[in-house]
């Protein structure tokens, strides 16, 4: 798949093998810790237990309790610890387990981590990485299933990445840790077990650079996180109908690589943006607005957005399935766009 080509481009002499998303994350983190003595990890049950999603397996064995720290359930203090340590030159990786828990520590993320460099006149950097699991699909209900990237992407000073597969999980994590800014790495819970080819050596994926996951001429689908896989599946289905979908994975949603999108739209003339988060006020609105601004004359139809309805994530699997966008809805969206023009 595309990821392999990408991997080869990044590391020509690499040996790639299939690795799961969670293992790829773990490998990238371990390599970044080996690379830089200043990288440490703190979070609830990350050290002794290896993380509730097994994200931190075996790291305590290799790096010991100085660099793998189990903390109390104190998210505000946890992120604050990261901010203070980062301001003093360390490269903390703090884990928030479920993204929903950022509600508890939003001040430390939004008012402290994001603004410190600016408010201090540039005299400090906050090279903090926040890892967390987002997304619905596990029956985890309204307080354990959200995709809150739009909250964070709205805040100047933060960066936000959304790995869509194992390859990007590793590369974006490494780049987040190497980056001198606070970066939130949104891992997707449903993707944790999914695998693809991942190079063995350490590599970073540039933050703020989108990736064209599939080339096509008829519709551009811009998909975030787990929706990339759904969009690729929809593209397979539409290819059988003779429709060629181009799928763009922004990978980083803040900063957002709009140039890659504009270039694509100028060729396909139709755009669909899809994300798991609620449609209202979601990143789809921002992307649509920017495309209209930059490429209005190239559009054969208004930019279409697909996201979740304006509701908390429901528990019942039948409702949750109807709630989260999927390949069928993406395919239907593409058909609608084609009918309009």
């Amino acid at each position: 798949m595309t990821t392999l080509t990408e991997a080869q481009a990044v590391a020509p002499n690499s040996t790639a093998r299939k690795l799961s998303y969670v293992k790829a994350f773990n490998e990238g983190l371990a390599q970044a810790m080996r690379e830089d003595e200043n990288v440490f990890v703190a979070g609830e049950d990350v050290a002794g237990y290896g993380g509730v999603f097994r994200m931190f397996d075996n790291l305590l064995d290799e790096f010991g309790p100085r660099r793998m720290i189990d903390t109390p359930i104190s998210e505000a203090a946890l992120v604050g610890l990261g901010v203070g340590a980062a301001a003093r030159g360390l490269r903390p990786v703090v884990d928030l387990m479920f993204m929903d828990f950022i509600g508890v520590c939003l001040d430390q993320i939004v008012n402290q981590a994001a603004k410190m460099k600016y408010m201090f006149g540039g005299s400090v950097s906050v090279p903090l990485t926040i890892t967390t699991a987002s997304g619905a699909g596990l029956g985890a209900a309204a307080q354990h299933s959200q995709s809150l990237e739009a909250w964070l992407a709205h805040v100047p000073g933060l960066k936000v990445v959304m790995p869509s597969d194992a390859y990007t999980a590793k590369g974006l994590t490494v780049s987040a840790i190497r980056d001198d800014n606070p970066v939130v790495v949104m891992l997707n819970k449903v993707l944790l077990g999914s695998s693809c080819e991942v190079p063995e050596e350490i590599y970073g994926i540039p933050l703020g650079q989108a990736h064209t996951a599939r080339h096509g001429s008829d519709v551009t689908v811009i998909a975030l996180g787990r929706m990339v896989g759904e969009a690729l599946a929809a593209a397979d289905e539409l290819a059988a109908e003779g429709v060629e979908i181009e799928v763009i994975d922004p990978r980083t949603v803040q900063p957002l690589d709009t140039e890659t999108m504009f270039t694509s739209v100028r060729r396909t003339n139709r755009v669909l943006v899809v994300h798991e988060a609620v449609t209202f006020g979601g990143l789809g609105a921002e992307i649509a607005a920017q495309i209209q601004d930059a490429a209005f004359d190239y559009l054969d139809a208004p930019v279409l957005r697909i996201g979740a309805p304006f509701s908390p994530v429901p528990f019942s699997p039948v409702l949750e399935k109807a709630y989260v966008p999927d390949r069928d809805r993406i395919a239907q969206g593409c058909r609608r766009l084609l009918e309009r023009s």
Partner: protein
Amino acid sequence: MAQRASTASEESAQVSKDLSAQVIKDLHERMVRIRLFETEAGKLMEAGKLPGFLHLYVGQEAVAAGVMAALRDDDQITSTHRGHGHAVAKGVGLREMYAELYGRVTGACLGRGGSMHINDVTRGMLGANGIVGAGVPIAVGAAFAARYKGEDSVAVTFFGDGATNIGAFHEGANMAAILDLPVVFVCENNGYAEFTPQSKHMLLTDVADRAAAYGMPSVIVDGMDAVAVHRAAVEAVERARSGGGPMMIEAKTYRFFDHQGVKGLRHPYRSDDEVAEWKARDPIDLIETRAVADGTATRAELDDTWQRTRDEIAEAIAYAEASPLPDTADLLLNVYSG
């Protein structure tokens, strides 16, 4: 200055003498209901019938039963991610609870909430909660409302040892103390926050010591002993109801299953011996042995409670399984009021 009330566990050996047989049977029945509700839910989970997460309460029944038997229907509680026991003991319907675990429209949350969000405002159950510590300030608000309206109901908030490391707990405790509100803080100290033992998440041995920081009296009880818990709860609830302000009860207890699900000791964060030691102090065995010994209840009466409850549970599960799924056309139901 904060003062520690007497340690109720000392009195716990002297059992039912001055508690009526009725209260003992009530405590027993509430515990049996929780135990069977939970073990059956665990089996359903293992059979792959339930979606989502299941944080089982088995082992901690004496706490929910002891506290809830001290409450009136109009008293309010806030619960945790491990909330089934509180809901069952507060009188939430078993049918609605199972239907919720199945994601059916007849469930306590109409299938929208699942295990971690079971509630029933008609029973004063203001919800289990997926966010650790979040229920604490909510109980403070419920107590505030009671006083504001001139009612004499109280609010009880349940939380774990781990939850007392979160800001919401500390802010809620201080708020309750400074506003002198009728709130009872019940810490169910099962020794672990997920997989982290208490010794690794706080330097205190007794969570009750935290109450002192807010000028709140506290008491430590044997959380495997429903009678001891009940005595402490009656005292704290009466105190709160009569305008004496908030108080904290720390119940030392244990969960018999894993943090989540039923698998047990998959990861070596606690030893088999430790689990066995606590299981030897099973709260239901404890009350049954004593009740039979001192003639409060006969074995036949206790067995009858188990049998009746078993039948009720089976019926509730059948009800849940026969219930319809929510209609996807109603996806936006209840996002807003009015």
